[in-house]
């Protein structure tokens, strides 16, 4: 088995811990939720990041934009080769989206995802089961099998934590 404690492996672990989840969420949006494809793209993107680690380390805060740009590139390239058609005839839907806006938006979404990921499981669950699934507090309470007051207060503390966490990440809520 390979040595898994070298600086190279540590670097890859750090890239994975910090970015794999948010990057996966981003890529899932680009590939219509195809989990297998998305993970392949994340794998390729993180490998490329690892190969370019020296340069990326030299520019703080540049890792996410770089990852998003490269992941998007890989998705488009895969899309093109799957289509095996000249792109002039049929540009992929991704290419119709202005890249700069798309990347800004992706970065913002990843930051929100990060903040969501920072929540305790119970707090995140309360948000997801209400807001993201379009349920009221009472409906979610029934699904979760806890009192409505508990869901209500979890939603409250979840929002407070997210607000702080987004402010720390430089996103003003």
């Amino acid at each position: 088995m390979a040595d898994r404690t070298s600086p190279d492996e540590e670097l890859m672990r750090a890239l994975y811990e910090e970015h794999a989840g948010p990057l996966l969420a981003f890529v899932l949006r680009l590939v219509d939720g195809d989990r297998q494809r998305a993970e392949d793209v994340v794998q390729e993107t993180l490998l490329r990041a690892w190969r370019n680690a020296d340069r990326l380390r030299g520019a703080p805060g540049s890792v996410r934009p770089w990852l998003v740009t490269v992941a998007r590139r890989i998705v488009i390239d895969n899309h093109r080769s799957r289509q095996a058609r000249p792109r002039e005839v049929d540009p992929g839907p991704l290419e119709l989206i202005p890249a700069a806006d798309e990347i800004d938006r992706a970065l913002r979404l990843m930051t929100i995802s990060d903040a969501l990921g920072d929540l305790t499981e119970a707090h995140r669950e309360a948000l997801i089961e209400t807001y993201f699934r379009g349920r009221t507090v009472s409906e979610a309470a029934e699904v979760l099998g806890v009192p409505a007051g508990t869901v209500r207060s979890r939603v409250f503390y979840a929002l407070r934590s997210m607000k702080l966490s987004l402010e720390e990440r430089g996103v003003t809520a």
Partner: protein
Amino acid sequence: MNRPAPDHGQYERHEQHTAVGAYALGVLDEAGAARFEEHLAGCPECAAELDGLMGLTPLLAELKEAGPAPEALVPRPDPALLDRLLDRVAAGRRAQRIRRLCLVAAAAALIVAGPLVGAAVFSEEAPDHSGVSAAKQMYEDGEKIGAVDPATKADVTVSLQQKPWGTHVALRLAHVRGPLTCDLVAVGKNGERQVVTTWAVPPGGYGLDGTDTAGTGDKPDRADKGDKWSKEPLYTHGGAALNRNDISRFEVRTLDGKLLATVKV
């Protein structure tokens, strides 16, 4: 209308304070929202809290709209993904180590290929080992001109490559016995002399088969004592700040001035 008991009122008040989050997100049912609005009218704290939380809602709305599906909002990649990545890193690291070694070799070659600078570097590395294969490769690649000196029998071939900075010179030297310290000198058509490289010939010499008597070293009694002559020729290289066409000859000399061989080019 019955007023709630004081402790119940306090509980109710706490309940309403925490409802501000659900209210901001619009996930209270109608009755709950109405109750909170009633509370909000008399609670400046909740008004301030609500104001703060309302900034979050467009961000959450954007995330909700963009997807992915709620269960994948904070997706946990398959742990096998990390394993695959670490495997690829290990493989990449091996490849990179090889690449780095190649780069080191290439860098070394660049240093020694520079005019004059290379001489000292290479004399330290003589007689063989790491740099020699590179020198041999450079020798193979160039324009080769050789001569065997009628007096010393030293067998000298230079291999030339024109460069922007002058002429790269690789040298093959055989039929020389040591110990000696030598240099290779490029002599220009105008008589200018430039040292291409210097090196030491070890006692075993270079390119000898044991019957040779070439060179200016000790009498060949070493062979009788069982000492090994080196059968391998020397390959080394350097450069001269002269264009190929401006060079008339190369001389191999000992540092005390004895001429071992001349190669006219």
